[in-house]
C-alpha cells in the first residue's frame, strides 16, 4: 500500500500547492491589468499615397485538406494580378481538416469563431473563401477558391470607395505600436468597427496535397496568428462625415515563437451589423512602411 500512499500524497501536494489563484481588484473594483490605455483615438491625417480600394479575402483551410494547395495556387495567381490591392488571410479552424499533421498547430480559437459564424464549419466544405464578408441573399457568400478569382476580386474592387485606410507598425523589441488612419471619402451613417490582426508568412509545416501525398515542407502563407482587437472589432470612434479623419493607436506584444520578419499587421473596417468589409490595409510588422504597390 506504500505505492498508493505515495500517489495520494503526491496528488495532494500538487492540488493543494497550486489549487487556485486570487486576483485582487484595483481601487475601482476592476480585475484588469490596464483599462482604457491600450487604444487611443485622435484626429487622423490625410491619406494620399496609400489611398484606394482594397479587397479582403479570407481563406478557410487546413493541413488535412487536399484541395487547399490548389486554392493557394489560385490565390497566388490573383495576387500577381492585383498586387497589394488584394489582402489575403488563411485561417485554420477546428474542423477535421484543420487538425495539425505534426507538431505545428496553426489553428486559433478566434479564427475558428469566424469560421463558425460565417458558416464554413457548418457547410464542412474546404477550402472555403469569402470576399469582404459579402452576403449572397441571407447568407455569407462563401465559395471554393480553387478556380480563377479575377472576376470576383475585380467586382469587389469596383464597388464604391467610402473610406481610405492605412496602417503602420513600429516595432520596439517585441512590442509594436500600431497606427490605423481612417479617412471618410463618403458620408457613412452605419456603425463601424475596426478589426486588427497579425498574420505570418512562410511557415513550414506538413500539408496534404491534391494527390493525397503529404508534403512535409509545405510553405504556409498568410496564416492568422491572433486577432489584436475583439474578433468583431472595436467601435470606430468617428462621426462618419465626409472628409472626417480618425486615427487609432494601440500597442501589441508579439509572441516569441512567431518569426517577426514574416509577420504582417492587417486592419479592416467593417459594418458592425452586416460585418461587410468597407476597406482593408496591411503592413509589415518589422518596418513602418505600408505595403502598397500599384
Amino acid at each position: 500500500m506504500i505505492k498508493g500512499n505515495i500517489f495520494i500524497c503526491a496528488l495532494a501536494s500538487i492540488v493543494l500547492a497550486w489549487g487556485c489563484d486570487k486576483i485582487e481588484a484595483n481601487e475601482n473594483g476592476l480585475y484588469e491589468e490596464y483599462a482604457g490605455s491600450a487604444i487611443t483615438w485622435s484626429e487622423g491625417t490625410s491619406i494620399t499615397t496609400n489611398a484606394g480600394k482594397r479587397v479582403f479575402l479570407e481563406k478557410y483551410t487546413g493541413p488535412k485538406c487536399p484541395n487547399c494547395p490548389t486554392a493557394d495556387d489560385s490565390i497566388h495567381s490573383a495576387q500577381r494580378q492585383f498586387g497589394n490591392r488584394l489582402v489575403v488571410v488563411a485561417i485554420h479552424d477546428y474542423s477535421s481538416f484543420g487538425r495539425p499533421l505534426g507538431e505545428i498547430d496553426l489553428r486559433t480559437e478566434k479564427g475558428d469563431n469566424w469560421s463558425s459564424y460565417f458558416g464554413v464549419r457548418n457547410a464542412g466544405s474546404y477550402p472555403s473563401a469569402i470576399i469582404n464578408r459579402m452576403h449572397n441573399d441571407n447568407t455569407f457568400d462563401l465559395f471554393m477558391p480553387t478556380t480563377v478569382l479575377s472576376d470576383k476580386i475585380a467586382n469587389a474592387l469596383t464597388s464604391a470607395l467610402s473610406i481610405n485606410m492605412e496602417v503602420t507598425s513600429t516595432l520596439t523589441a517585441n512590442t509594436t505600436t500600431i497606427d490605423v488612419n481612417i479617412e471618410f471619402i463618403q458620408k457613412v451613417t452605419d456603425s463601424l468597427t475596426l478589426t486588427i490582426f497579425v498574420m505570418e508568412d512562410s511557415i513550414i509545416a506538413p500539408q496534404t496535397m491534391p494527390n493525397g501525398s503529404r508534403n512535409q515542407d509545405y510553405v504556409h502563407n498568410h496564416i492568422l496568428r491572433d486577432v489584436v482587437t475583439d474578433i468583431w472589432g472595436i467601435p470606430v470612434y468617428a462621426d462618419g462625415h465626409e472628409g472626417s479623419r480618425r486615427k487609432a493607436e494601440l500597442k501589441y506584444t508579439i509572441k516569441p515563437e512567431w518569426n517577426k520578419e514574416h509577420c504582417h499587421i492587417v486592419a479592416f473596417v467593417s459594418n458592425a451589423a452586416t460585418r461587410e468589409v468597407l476597406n482593408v490595409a496591411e503592413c509589415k510588422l518589422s518596418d513602418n512602411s505600408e505595403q502598397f504597390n500599384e
Partner: protein
Amino acid sequence: MNARADILYTNGPFSAGLRFEAYQKPMLGFDPRYEGQGIANYFASYQNDKLSVTAGNYYEQFGNGLILRSYEDRFLGIDNSLFGFSVNYRPWDGVTLKGIIGKQRFYWEYGKGFVRGLDAEVALNNIIKSWTESKTRITLGGGFVSKYEDNDVTIISRQNEYALYKLALPANVGAGSVRMELSHGGWGLQAEYAYKSQDPNEQNHYIYKNGDALFVSASYSQKGFSANLQAKRVDNMGFRSERNPNDKTGQMLYINYVPSITKQHTYAFLSMYPYATQTTGEMGLQGDLMFKLKKETLLGGKYGTDIHINTAVITSLDTSTIGGMGTDGYTSPYFGPGDLYYGDVSVEIARKLSGKSKITATYGYVVFNPIVEGHAGHLHHNNIIVCDYTYKINKKNVLRMEAEWMGSDSKYDVLVDDKRCGDWVMGLVEYNFTSAFFISLSDQYCYHDGIGNYPNVSIGYTRKASRLQIGYGKQREGIVCIGGVCRQVPASNGLTFSLTTSF
C-alpha cells in the same frame, strides 16, 4: 450514423478496454465536430481490495458531482471523460480516498485545461467500533478540484466604450466541497455545500465573483409510503476546464455537475418542456410523495392503488448588477428568489383493474419560462392529462395504449418558431408479442394555436442482450434532457435504425 463498440478485457486484478466510435456523419442533433471515427477512449487499470489505479480515459464523481463529475451519455452526445490517472485507495474499512489528474475529452481532442482533484469519504459507523451496530448511519466527505489553464491575455472591448481592456485571469481555479449523509431507520438526510474560486469565463461574461452551491435532500420511507424533499441554490457554479471552449452545445468540458431536482417525466407531453439546470444561478425546491392505498378497501380497490405526487419550483436568483466584465458582476441575497424559471405538479394514480389489466392516469401542470432556453417571451402554462392502459393477453402478448392531451396558453409565433406551442393530442398503441417483438404506432397532433402532426411507427426485436429497432416517422424540433443536462434535437423526417448488443 452513430456507432460505437466497447471492448473490455479482464484478467485477475488487471483490466483494459477501449471504445471505438464512428460518426459518419453524426446523427441530427449531435455536434458536427464528432464527425470521424477511431478509438475515442482507452484505459488500463489494476484493482485489488484496497487500491485501484487507472491510466487512460476514466469517469469519476465526487459526492453529488458539485465539484467533479466526469461522465458519458450517448443520447445527449456528451463525453466528459478525463484522460490521465485516477487512484482510488481504501486504507481502512469505511475510508475512501480518491485522486484524479488529467484533461477532459472534447470531441476528438482534449480541452486545454488540466484537472486535478482529491476526495475523501469516511463512513463513521465503520471506523468507530461502538457505532457499528447503530441504527444511525453517518458518512462525511470532502473534496477539492483545481483546474489549470494558461492565463493567456484576454483583451476585451466593452459595449459602448472605445477602450480595450486586458483581464488579469487566474490560471488556477479551485473548487471545494463538504458533504454529509445521515440515515436513521426510514429517515435520511443528505447535504453538500460547494465553493468555487474566481473563474472569469465566457459563460459568466468574465466576472470575478466566487461561486457556490448548496444541495439538501431529506427523505422518509416505510412500507407503502415514501416522501422526499429537496432544495438547492446554485450561484455562478459553471465549472469548465476551458474558459471559452467554443462549444455551441454548452455541455462539453464541464468538470462539475449540478443535480437536477425536477422530476424526469416519461410521458411525451409532460416532458415536452424539460428543465435544463442553470449553472449560472438558480434556486429551487422539489417535493415527492408516494403512497399506496391498501387493497380490498373502498379507495384502494381489489388490488390496491399507487399514488405518486410530485411538485417542483425553480427560480432565478434575485441579483443586483454591480458591473460587467472584469468586476464581481452582481450580488444576490442568499434566500432571495428571482423570476420563475420552471414549476410543475403532477399526480399519478396507478391501479390494477384485474389480473390482466392495469390503468395509470396522470394529471400534470407545467409552467415554463422560455428564457431558460434563451428565448424571450411569456411564461407557458400547460395542463396535461395522460391515460395509460396495459392489457396482458397472455404470458407472451401484451397490449399497451396511451392517450395524452395538453392544453396550453402558448401560441405559435413564427419569429420564435417554437413548434411545441399550442394545444395537443396524442395516441399510442404498442403491442408486444412472443416476448421478443414489439410494434408501436403513435401520433402527436397540434389541433389549436400551433402547428404540427408527428406520426411514428416503430418495430423492434429483442433477443438475449441484443435489441434491434427500426422506426419511421416525423420528429418535432425540441429539447431532450437527462438529469437537467439537455441537447437540442432538430426536426427530422425519416427512417431510424438502432442496434445494441453485448456479449
